[in-house]
């Protein structure tokens, strides 16, 4: 009986699985999946596992924990009704939905929406953040565990265009980067209680980039905060600053990471190795030709890929940042590409998904699928499928 009780108590954590996609750009925020059975030619008739309607707008990525897919949306005349929805990954049926009222301002640019930041999960809890700075923590069954109205707490932390930075959870701390012209801070919130563990002031400048986990000295994970001033690495448990890179960075595309190296949208792309003994970081190279536009860069094995304003995919090597080839795609793009194996998955703003085979000498488009609706949000990969979301629908594409 003790075993039964233990089973009951421990049921929720068991739901989480290795193929989870628990945050923006998935495990470690790399955007790279270890899935090996994804479709590459994309045929609507063969590969559409399911498509389901969403009750509101959003560009947050779906996140996947075990057999559940979590999506956020916003609806209503002022986009002030906030939705957190859990779907079954298998058939797209809805398990539960919770709705809340926004307590902060909801004004956004027409391309952004209040459901812009991607949720995060530690495998037991879901942390859903909205542009109104409303933050909800629910268990995987939809039970509200705590909430915060961060614009109530910090009233000038808003951006008329909307906020989009996605939080990360590490060592029991949810790190949320909220930087606007009026008020800017990063807060470490205790994942269990919802109370601040620490809060640090940041440069007052609008910033849409997301914090990123990167391996620092002695293998310890640190949080890299990107802003117009550059990169600040902090200890996620205390918020203490560890090191700074001060040569500026973009406030729209976030850095890419692979292992102990950050590929920062700074003066094109600047590669920073972060696990140096006795030194905060080492600048490996800088490549102005690899400058990304809105979508964040991604590193796939020894290649770095960026998308420019013209919808051209730039491929460089990660050793010295040399551009290897360019491939014109059908843009424009806001969503960040993802990768599995040697395939790159992209979706443009018109909803055209494209697959690029990176094993070809200069890359080659091998698959296309027109989803027929504007898509701004980055897709997700998990449980053998790719998930795309628009303002109206959520799709699961998988191999048959």
């Amino acid at each position, binding site marked *: 009986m003790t075993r039964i*009780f233990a089973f009951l108590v421990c049921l929720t954590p068991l739901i989480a699985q290795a193929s989870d996609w628990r945050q923006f750009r998935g495990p470690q925020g790399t955007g790279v999946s270890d899935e090996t059975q994804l479709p590459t030619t994309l045929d609507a008739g063969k590969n559409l596992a399911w498509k389901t309607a969403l009750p509101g707008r959003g560009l947050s990525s779906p996140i996947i924990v075990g057999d559940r897919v979590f999506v956020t949306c916003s609806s209503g005349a002022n986009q002030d009704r906030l939705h957190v929805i859990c779907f079954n990954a298998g058939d797209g049926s809805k398990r539960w939905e919770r709705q809340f009222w926004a*307590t902060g301002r909801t004004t956004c640019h027409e391309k952004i929406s209040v459901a812009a930041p991607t949720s995060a999960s530690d495998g037991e809890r879901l942390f859903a953040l909205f542009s109104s700075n409303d933050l909800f923590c629910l268990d995987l069954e939809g039970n509200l565990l705590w909430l915060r109205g961060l614009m109530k707490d910090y009233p000038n932390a808003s*951006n008329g265009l909307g906020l989009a930075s996605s939080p990360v959870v590490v060592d029991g701390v949810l790190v949320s980067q909220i930087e*606007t012209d009026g008020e800017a801070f990063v807060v470490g919130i205790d994942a269990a209680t919802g*109370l601040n563990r620490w809060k640090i002031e940041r440069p007052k400048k609008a910033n849409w980039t997301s914090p990123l986990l990167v391996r620092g000295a002695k293998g310890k994970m640190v949080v890299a905060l990107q802003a117009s001033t550059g990169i600040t690495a902090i200890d996620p448990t205390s918020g203490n600053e560890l090191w700074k890179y001060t040569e500026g960075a973009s406030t729209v595309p976030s850095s890419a990471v692979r292992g102990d190296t950050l590929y920062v949208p700074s003066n094109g792309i600047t590669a920073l190795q972060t696990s140096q003994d006795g030194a905060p970081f080492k600048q490996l190279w800088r490549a102005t030709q690899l400058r990304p536009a809105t979508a964040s860069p991604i590193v796939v094995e020894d290649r770095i890929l960026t998308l420019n304003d013209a919808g051209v995919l730039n491929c460089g090597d990660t050793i010295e940042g040399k551009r290897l080839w360019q491939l014109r795609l059908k843009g424009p793009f806001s969503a960040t590409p993802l990768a599995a194996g040697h395939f790159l998955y992209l979706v443009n703003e018109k909803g055209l998904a494209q697959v690029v085979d990176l094993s070809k000498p200069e890359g080659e488009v091998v698959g296309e699928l027109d989803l027929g609706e504007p898509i701004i949000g980055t897709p997700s990969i998990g449980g053998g499928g790719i998930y795309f979301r628009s303002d109206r629908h959520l799709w699961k594409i998988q191999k048959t």
Partner: protein
Amino acid sequence: MFTRSVVTIRLSLIFTAAAVCNGLFFVSAAEVEESVRAIRGIGAEGKGQVEAAKAMQSLRSADAKSILTILMAMGEGNALADNWLRAAVETIAQREMTKGTRLPMLELGQFVLETSNPPRARRLAFELITRVDPVTADRMLTGMVNDPSTELRREAVQKTIQQAETSLAESNKVGAVLLFQQMLGLARDVDQVDSIAKSLRTLGQTVDLPWTLGFLTQWKVVGPFDSTGGKGFAAVYRPEETLDLGAEYDGKTGKVRWQTLAQTEEDGSASMNKPFTPLKGAAAFAYTEFNSEHAQTAELRLGSKNAFKVWLNGKFLFGQEEYHRNKAIDQYRMAGQFQAGRNIILVKVCQNEQTEDWATEWDFQLRVCDSLGTPLRSSALAKAVIAPASGGKL
């Protein structure tokens, strides 16, 4: 004996856990009320969060009848608590509906119909009814075009707009115009007002949109003051210290005096570019008076792409140092205490030094509303005071 007790305790724990999981363990009415009180104690920066989380655990096990108690506890001005309570209602409702238990539909319906109940709670009750009986819910909307719940009102207004469009499709232009005009006065969401206005204009009717939305259009303005490097937002200029409509100040380009702002835009914007030319690195002040028939709390609703500060009767309400991100009607909602009679509204609006084409706007739009978004209009007294140039101190 000892072993048997341990087994009994363990069994009790297991069955309790299982019962809670299956919704078989309900809490008493007193416990529900106590939990609701704990949740209503939630405050800034997570204050009361731990207590609220414990209370929520209790509420999850409450029965369907408790939904009414929880709904009644909403709308006390604590938006965070309202979200906690909403989650409790949804959790209970989902569990009961999954089990096949009937929700207290009559009580929920009566709760909705009682317009003195909290608007958001009434809306939530309406949504529960909609899930169970959408036909009845839809019929209930009839007569809600003047409802104190903006969400219920919106749906009811939308139904009437559809009726107007049907009239139009049936070539009953007069009928359509009358319905549109009726809804123009009742709609509270700006997008709905805008849509109705477009329909009426298409039908040849004149619509004064700034007046309909209640924008304040009578201003006296002074400027430009030097705000080079963005210093103007934090700087304290003389009009912030003492309001004197007859005063002369040292401005950015010479001596400046208060002047009447003669024009406003279709969206109710008061443009500083018109009196002061499209300057950069400048600050200006706009002054108006609002005559309130009685003392009341009302909302000043402002939209601007520029950094601003707002004072009501000399009391600072809110400011935001942000330039050229976005502007929307009702972007910022500030609660203010209006006194009976004359009230003074002062706005500082700053322009930065961005040179892009899209960074030329230097304006704001402001209206006074009740919490529902109903425009409150100043009486003729205030207009009479502000219309002529005033040389006296306030």
